[in-house]
């Protein structure tokens, strides 16, 4: 069977002065996979993610995302990925439909495509009555679900989610993961960071970064076996304890 990889990173490195934030990171992500990207604060996750999204230039090594080189073809990378962070994803003072039109337009979708996809998306989320509601007045949980749908509105090959469920109530957090599963079923690769260790269990494979390096990468079941751990929280603890570089 020929393997299709949507992310291939080889020796990816980022150095700020003498500080190596991301240290020769090598890994591959399969098409349609839900890939959990874990690590303590300061382990280098954000730096690695910024390079993969074409937002930061690697000091050494290379990576391809959706088939494009992150250094030489950063614009192509950006067109073929979706991105959602906890902090910013939507314009508060635009309506739901306006946000969709704006993002669709930025990604070069036609008016017709935008119109058709808007109708489908609103129906799927049960948001038909919120079409003309200002995003500002939506409950947080709704905003997060809308932000995710927006991140995959242009049908990217891969979507990067940076702590998408931080501060979200427990029910919405689970509904959010059901949206992630649905996207993965459609073949969209999901690259996600989280501080909730139960969510690490929902990933197909998980990598754990320590001191700028990937120290472990496997399925949650295999990681638990390797580290003789009951759950992913214990796996995380035993790896994070090996950190030399401390955040504090």
């Amino acid at each position, binding site marked *: 069977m020929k393997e299709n990889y949507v992310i291939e990173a080889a020796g990816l490195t980022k150095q700020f002065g003498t500080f190596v934030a991301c240290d020769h990171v090598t890994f591959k992500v399969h098409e349609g996979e839900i890939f959990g990207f874990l690590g303590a*604060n300061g382990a280098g996750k954000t730096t690695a993610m910024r390079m993969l999204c074409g937002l930061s230039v690697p000091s050494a090594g290379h990576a391809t995302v959706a088939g494009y080189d992150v250094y030489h073809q950063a614009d192509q990378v950006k067109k073929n990925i979706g991105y959602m962070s906890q902090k910013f994803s939507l314009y508060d003072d635009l309506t739901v439909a306006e946000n969709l039109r704006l993002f669709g337009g930025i990604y070069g979708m036609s008016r017709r495509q935008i119109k058709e996809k808007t109708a489908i998306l609103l129906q799927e989320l049960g948001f038909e009555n919120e079409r003309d509601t200002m995003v500002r007045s939506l409950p947080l949980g709704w905003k997060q679900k809308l932000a995710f749908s927006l991140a995959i509105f242009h049908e990217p090959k891969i979507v990067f989610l940076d702590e998408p469920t*931080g*501060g979200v*109530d427990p*029910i919405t957090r689970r509904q959010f993961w059901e949206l992630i599963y649905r996207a993965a079923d459609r073949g969209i690769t999901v690259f996600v960071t989280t*501080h909730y260790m139960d969510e690490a269990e929902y990933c197909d494979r998980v990598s754990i970064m320590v001191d700028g390096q990937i120290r472990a990468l496997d399925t949650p079941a295999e990681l638990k076996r390797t580290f003789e751990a009951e759950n992913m929280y214990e796996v995380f*603890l035993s790896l994070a304890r090996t950190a030399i570089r401390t955040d504090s």
Partner: protein
Amino acid sequence: MIVSVHNLKKRYRRVQALREVSFDVNEGEIFGLIGPDGAGKTTLFRILATLLLPDGGTASVDWLDVVRDYKAIRRRIGYMPGRFSLYQDLTVEENLQFFATTFGTTIQENYHLIKDIYQHIERFKTRKAGQLSGGMKQKLALSCALIHAPRVLFLDEPTTGVDPVSRKEFWEMLHHLQHDYGITIVVSTPYMDEAMKCDRIALMQDGQFLQIDTPQAIIAGYERNLWSVSSDHMHQLLGHLRQWPQATSVFSFGVTYHVTVSPDADANRLRNFLAQKGHQHIDINPISASIEDAFMALSTTRQG
């Protein structure tokens, strides 16, 4: 009661941020406000820290009224807002010095209080606060909130966005402050697992309290029948469990699903039902609830 809140209300234009909440905090207690963003936790803290006026109701801190005696209260509390709000252009030490001086004390006088926390960052004391990492900022902010030896600490989501290891360390520091110095701590968090680290908690949603009690009592009061279910096809299992008439809710919990079932539900029937759908290695176990199960049950009951 070192903190006493009675029918407190606050509205911002169309949003009712607090709907008549009441609670008391005992001296020396760690009291947790547990709830998602938008529950009203920050509004409550801002009123207690005398930074915001309530629309109705009363609140007192250390037996002083938050509206009338606001100046006196400010000397007796330490407040750590959710957003980092120290002076980014001052160094670590200058920030600490500033807060000590503002409250008419010195770093030396109360150093014992902050020693355990501050020694983690002391070697960076000449670094500007704006250049610290997240974990270091959090420790500096806690040191600054403590340097005048407050009677009560108000901590608004100190662990949000913090990794599990640093969160564990942070809670160890709080228990240490409680145990050694008897400081009362009111702390909010969106992480349900942290509820277990508090003496008492208020589960909060949409500006209301769902329940106030010890975490143990809230769990003990969980009345539904709860099963943990797994099989070799977890993905399909979710939909199949939702089709089963006796299942009232199905939520993922790490490697299994937590299913609430009606009182007459029979595990063998469910086993057969799932086997017919093609599942193997079916595992069904009655379990006791976690605080997260309790929160979800209470919040769905409230929503009707």
